[in-house]
């Protein structure tokens, strides 16, 4: 069965690039344009999301808010969450750790690096 990855970003360019990189490796990709959209989609999905990749700066509900929401939900408290952002200050990474992100990638990113990071959690 295909592993499902939820990609959350308000940039359609990033969504396209991330989706292409992951679909090329056989993953099924579901997308959301911000944290609020992601919460809605994830709650209405019949299949289980195996991993979440999220941006930080987004309208309505940002990446930190989304991670916090997912970590307080029994179903998603253990789901790997990768932050993919252009923010590279130490403070942002620390905040990512605090809210419960699994790892952190900085944009612009190399597709191989993203796939590598995803495979750390979804291998086998």
């Amino acid at each position, binding site marked *: 069965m295909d592993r499902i990855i939820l990609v959350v970003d308000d*940039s359609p360019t990033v969504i396209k690039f991330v989706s292409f990189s992951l679909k090329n490796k056989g993953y099924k990709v579901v997308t959301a344009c911000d944290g609020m959209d992601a919460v809605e989609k994830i709650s209405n999905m019949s299949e289980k999301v195996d991993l979440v990749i999220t941006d930080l700066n987004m309208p309505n509900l940002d990446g930190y808010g989304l991670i916090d929401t997912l970590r307080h939900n029994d179903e998603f408290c253990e789901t790997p969450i990768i932050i993919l952002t252009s923010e590279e200050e130490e403070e942002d*990474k620390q905040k990512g750790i605090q809210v419960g992100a699994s790892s952190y990638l*900085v944009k612009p990113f190399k597709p191989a690096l993203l796939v590598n990071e995803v495979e750390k959690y979804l291998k086998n």
Partner: protein
Amino acid sequence: MSEVLNLQDKIKNELLDISGTISEIVDSYKQLHSPLVETQKNVPKATEQLDKIAEQTAAATHRMLDTAELITQREDEVIAGLNIIKEKINNKNYDEVIELCDDLALKASDNNNDAFVIMDALQFQDITSQQIDHAVVLLEELEKKLHRILAVLNGEDNKDLPEVSVSKKRAFDPHADLFTNKTNQHDIDSLFSKK
């Protein structure tokens, strides 16, 4: 004597009036000073962001054009290679055909990698759109300050001013940059593995 006292009162009233006017001018100056200073700061920041956008758009575009040129060169080589293969098959030079096929497979794989290089460079759109959003927010701030200055100059109360409309809700990283990625992924991974 009463005339002198009358004159004294008049002078006192005039002085009080002048002092009141000076206080009003000082108040207006105070109200003008802060928005003027902020305006002065925002304009160069917005200009800097716009310069960055132009520079990064140009760099990413050049990278994509160079890569597309490499891809088309290889495609020409692949076409030429296929024609040579045809000849070699006719002449039954099968060992050379195998060698040429390996070479063409390598070129196809290089083209595949270069397609990713182009997509990678296209991320400039995300980065520059964040820079544009930052510039727009700075300009919207500037517009608000100018409204405030105009209000003070017209003697209007700040509270009566209509809100400056904001075109859309923006979320962006003000430091987003295509080139200055100072992050080492290994360091980040170590940081996250310690949690």
